[in-house]
């Protein structure tokens, strides 16, 4: 074995090489390194994207904001200084999320039970329970028409009165108007399609409007759009607002939507729902379906129960203090169900019951039928009285603080009826009255009609 030279480190020393060869070897090793270093120095950092100039240049649901394509929800959150939170939160116009089973814990935040009567709420039937009672008193004698706000098509929706006295009304001419108490137009919003649903006004003044264009839109008190949520199906059932601000709407299924426009949960149904969701004191959301079921959904979005009703349901449910649920069917029945969905009794009228039953303070159920009668039923399902009109009754009744009942008929008249079933007066509005009235604190009655008018009566 040839002894190897070892340098002071104990490693074998390399054999001495010629200077040129050494230089060549060095160059061979150094060149790639130098090249890499050179290219590193030449890089300017990540390639700058070309700034966008228009929303059309951006894909999917993104817009061009400050030269960059960004998701609308991100920009909105940035501008409002908040972040989207919920695990099921989606951009406001992105439509519904996965079925309720996948909602997760973040969605388990339903409304607390109602234990005390509340002042009139600016939504259909004055309450998320749809009892139809008002704390205000309406005209005892035949009123005069103070003014009428004209739209260009039928007014099917019910007016609602906001905290400041502004009256909100949608029309089949696609308009949604905010009308001051003196009849002046404050602002008008034009939807993409007809408006059948009654609006709901939150405590912060946000106005929720459903339209046949498939959207639920949140407007601020000045009429500007806060957000617009595409539910991909006509929204002609009136939304309601829970005590925590959650909005419950129905289209192709039932939705719970937070005030920021994010869908908390969605329970799909086989077909389109026209029945306005009602909130049970136990927190469940109750709705009727065209398949002839009464459906109750837990605050978490889980289906609690389904009860067959025997016929299609168009009207909303109303819920009494004791939790009894009342609802009408297209077979002319008025059903009473317990909080567990079990049927307690069933009353048969002559034709379809498409109105939402109102519930008087003494528990009397007041509801109209297509057989042209207004019925008053006891909590046990017995007839107390009925009043005949000359037309079908599609509208729901409202009950004032004095127990007087106000309801429209397709005989063109708007009726006031005593708690005992006596017709106090009736006012001719010229065409069918399918809209449910609203009562203002000053006693003014607001009601829409097929003449396209929002009528103020006092």
């Amino acid at each position, binding site marked *: 074995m040839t002894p190897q030279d070892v340098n002071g480190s104990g490693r074998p020393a390399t054999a001495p090489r010629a200077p040129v060869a050494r230089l060549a070897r060095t160059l061979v090793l150094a060149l790639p390194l130098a090249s890499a270093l050179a290219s590193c120095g030449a890089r300017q950092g990540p390639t700058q994207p070309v700034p966008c100039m*228009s929303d059309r240049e951006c894909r999917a649901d993104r817009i061009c904001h*400050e030269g960059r394509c960004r998701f609308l929800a991100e920009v909105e959150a940035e501008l409002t200084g908040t972040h989207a939170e919920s695990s099921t939160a989606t951009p406001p116009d992105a439509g519904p999320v996965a079925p309720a089973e996948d909602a997760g814990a973040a969605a388990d935040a339903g409304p607390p039970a109602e234990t005390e009567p509340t002042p009139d709420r600016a939504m259909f039937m004055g309450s998320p329970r749809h009892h139809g009672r008002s704390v205000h008193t309406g005209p005892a004698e035949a009123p005069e028409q103070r003014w009428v706000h004209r739209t*260009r098509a039928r007014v099917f929706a019910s007016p609602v009165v906001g905290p400041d006295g502004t009256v909100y009304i949608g029309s089949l001419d696609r308009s949604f108007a905010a009308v001051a108490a003196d009849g002046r137009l404050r602002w008008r919003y*034009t939807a993409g399609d007809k408006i059948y649903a009654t609006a709901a006004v939150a405590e912060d003044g946000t106005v929720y409007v459903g339209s046949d264009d498939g959207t639920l839109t949140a407007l601020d008190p000045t*009429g*500007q759009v806060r957000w*617009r949520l595409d539910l991909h199906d006509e929204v002609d059932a009136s939304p309601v607002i829970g005590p925590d601000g959650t909005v419950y709407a129905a289209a192709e299924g039932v939705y719970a939507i937070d005030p920021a426009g994010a869908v908390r949960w969605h329970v799909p149904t086989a077909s389109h729902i026209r029945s306005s969701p009602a909130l049970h004191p136990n927190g469940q959301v109750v709705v009727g379906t065209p398949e002839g079921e009464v459906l109750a959904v837990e605050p978490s979005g889980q289906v609690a129960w389904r009860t067959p009703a025997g016929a299609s349901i168009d009207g909303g449910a109303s819920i009494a203090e004791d939790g009894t649920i009342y609802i009408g069917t297209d077979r002319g029945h008025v059903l009473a169900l317990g909080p567990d969905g079990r049927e307690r009794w069933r009353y048969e009228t002559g034709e379809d019951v498409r109105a939402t039953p109102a519930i008087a303070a003494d528990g009397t159920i007041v509801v109209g039928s297509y057989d042209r009668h207004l019925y008053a039923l006891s909590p046990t399902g017995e007839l107390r009285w009925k009043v005949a009109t000359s037309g079908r009754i599609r509208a729901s009744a409202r009950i004032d603080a004095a127990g007087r009942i106000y309801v429209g008929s397709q005989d063109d008249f708007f009726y006031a009826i005593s708690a005992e079933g006596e017709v106090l007066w009736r006012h001719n509005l010229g065409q069918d009255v399918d809209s449910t009235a609203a009562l203002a604190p000053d006693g003014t009655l607001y009601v829409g009609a097929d003449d396209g008018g929002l009528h103020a009566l006092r």
Partner: protein
Amino acid sequence: MRLPTLALLALLAACGGDDRRVPFGEEEDGETTPDDPGEPEGFTPREGRSFEPGAGTLSVEGSPLGVEGSPRALLALDLDEDGDRDALVVAETESELRLAAARREGDRFAPATLSTLELEGCAVARAGVRTVTEVSALAEAELRCEGDEAADPWRVRWVVGLGEAPRVRETLSTRAPLEAELVFEDRDEDGHEDLGLVARVHGAEVAFAWLDRPGGLAREAGEPEASVRAALDADPARGARLAAAFCRGEDARIRFGAGAWGLACPDALRERARRAEVAALLQAGELVDALAALEGGAPIPDDALDAAAASGIEATRLTRWRGTPDAATTHTALAFDADGGLIVRGVTAERHGPAGGVTPADALPAPVRDPGGRFFVRGLRRTCAGVEAELLPASQVGPGAGFAPAQRRPVAEAPLEGCTRPPESTLWRALGWAPQGLVVGRPGARWVAPLTADGLPAGDPVRLETGDPPPAPLQGGRVTPDGESWIVETPWGVLVTRRGRSELWRPAGWTDAPPPRAAALSQDGERVALLRGDEVFLLAPAGDDDAAAAPDEPPNR
């Protein structure tokens, strides 16, 4: 004379034929053709047979014709006068319509394609072949095209010269409302059959001919242009429709051969016809269509515009505008306030009171701004897909504005067919901003673009149909707050729409000033302010004292 021979052949054909094929049996009864009112004496026109799609292979006297495609019409006749029956066939393939002549050679046929036509997504509804004179036959087909089910079909006609070597003399295609008749006669009495055409559209008629020359058919010199000119002289409106139907363009309704629809009419004729068309629209009160035609480059019939304009509108020069030439700021130059005063914003802002007098005005925000006063519309931009609004923060109003990048939001869907480059000028205007969003319009159309308070999109733009209630209240220079009245200023006048009814405000001397650069409508909808060049004018119905009493006084500085 040939009829007995043909009858004998028909009888022979009836005895033979392959059962697997569709046999050609008895011939149809000859009928006088409606296009041939004066057939020569001794000549009897003959009509062939028509077939539904999928008729299968045709045979004559037991021999297959061998023509490619699905036969749709057939006429058996002795083309070469050799005593046997040949055939003219119209056949359809997936992409073409074919006209073929099949000469019988022994027990076989030798088909030869005479002409083909690209179907271009169309299908044959009906076809037919018939003789029209001793020397001419007419093969025709009606075509229906995809996406055009509601329209009348277009009609294709081949004029076939008969003989040993049949040839197509002319191919004519027509579409409703143009109707055409072919006339076969010797116009120049040279012993050769010429071809005449009588075309009618909207009550106007033109007739001309192709003369038979050694080289083929030659169109009469100067026709149909001369006939179109004569029609324009007699009735400009009808003449314009005739010109549109004949001359190359999107409204052409006639085609010769397989080229483009319409003839290459002289520019002077086309201009004259377009001017007549616009004049006819104006006379009929179709202001929106007339303005659209002018926007498309039609010549300007000033006298017709003057005649169609609303009467009694007077223009008063109000003041000289002292501003920057920057187009980004010019459109913000004019706005009426709620008290009827006109704010003129140039280098400085001044208010011209309704009863006269000029006072300095605060630097008001631009007219078309959101309810929160945070954004304003810098302008509208036409794209091939529609219209976009350029939004800027309100702080950018005034000289120097426009240097900040604008947010562009789609505000109307209005695709331009065949657009590769959008037009630079447009009649789209930003009318006003409602709480719901921005309202834009052009003659005959308005759109709402929903926007949030932050100027972000809040849904797709929605078109407002006639009668739809507009969003309100609207804040903007060209619309009243209730949205019921609005204006669109154009180079040819101001289209003022009030409660669904439009009229053109075009005071005397309109053409003496440059086109409008900015416009505003008073909040009561009664007066219009225009910036033309460097002059501000007030337009109002005569007798509007407020407009007449607005002097040009310097502001009280």
